[in-house]
């Protein structure tokens, strides 16, 4: 099955924060290191820093604690303080693939009381469909991402019950 004949698959999540639109945009794009789940390193070592270069065409990458640099994708649109579109170019084998693109669009909307609504849409996940079997093998590998998945699931449950 070709990728584009498959229906678009996306994930949409949102959150409201007590900061102005400009501050929220700045926090999201410059402090990713501080809110990115630590377990989610693609590189050879733990994450020291997550960097989003502040312009269209900029790079999105992680610095490892061992000094290595591992690309994640690119900045497809830089429109402060309203919107940033990042291309997540991590393929089904959890390696950077310049020919693979999924899109993470983050929009920042002003709300009453100086708050900002952050909506994140991760689009074109159907593009993982072509490598579904490979993906499943990785998910099912006990040494692979299943542990991370389980940790995320626990976190999610903890958050829900709080």
């Amino acid at each position, binding site marked *: 099955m070709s990728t584009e004949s*498959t*229906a*678009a*698959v996306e*994930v949409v*999540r*949102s*959150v*409201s*924060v*007590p*900061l102005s639109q400009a*501050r*929220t945009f700045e*926090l*999201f794009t410059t*402090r990713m290191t*501080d*809110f*990115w*789940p630590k377990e*989610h390193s693609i590189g050879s070592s733990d994450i020291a820093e997550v960097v989003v270069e502040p312009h269209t065409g900029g790079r999105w990458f992680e610095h490892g604690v061992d000094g290595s640099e591992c690309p994640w994708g690119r900045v497809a649109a830089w429109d402060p303080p309203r919107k940033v579109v990042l291309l997540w170019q991590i393929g089904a084998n959890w390696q950077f693939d310049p020919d693979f693109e999924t899109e993470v669009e983050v929009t920042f909307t002003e709300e009453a009381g100086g708050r900002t609504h*952050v909506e*994140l849409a*991760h689009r074109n*996940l*159907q593009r*993982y*469909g072509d490598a*579904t*079997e490979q*993906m*499943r093998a990785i*998910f099912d590998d006990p040494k692979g*991402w299943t542990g991370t*998945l389980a940790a*995320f*699931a626990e*976190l*999610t449950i903890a*958050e829900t019950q709080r």
Partner: protein
Amino acid sequence: MAASVDTVLDALGDRTRRAILEKLVLGPAAVGVLADQLPVSRPAVSQHLRVLKEAELVVESVAGTRRLYRINQAGLVVVRGYFDRFWETTLDNFALLAATETEADNRKVRREQANRNRPDPGRTHHK
């Protein structure tokens, strides 16, 4: 949030919904086409599709004015569930960070206000 096992089992526990899935296995279809092939009304098919969608067993796409439904590939359910949980955690972390920043801002404002309201010690002394 990815569909729970209960949601999926409930969705599959209905004969009409299973029939809809069997039709969709053959290829994507619109509500009207499904209704023509099944002994149920169009609104009933829509209702069943909604349940199947919530269980992430089918996905919907819009082509012009037409809505097409198709089987959600099992692997994609896993992928989608993974990213759904991932972004939920990440945005929760972000909200915590934002709340911390707001606290810090408020403390700074309060400190500045307190400093302004305090009488100048030098002046008070010479009064």
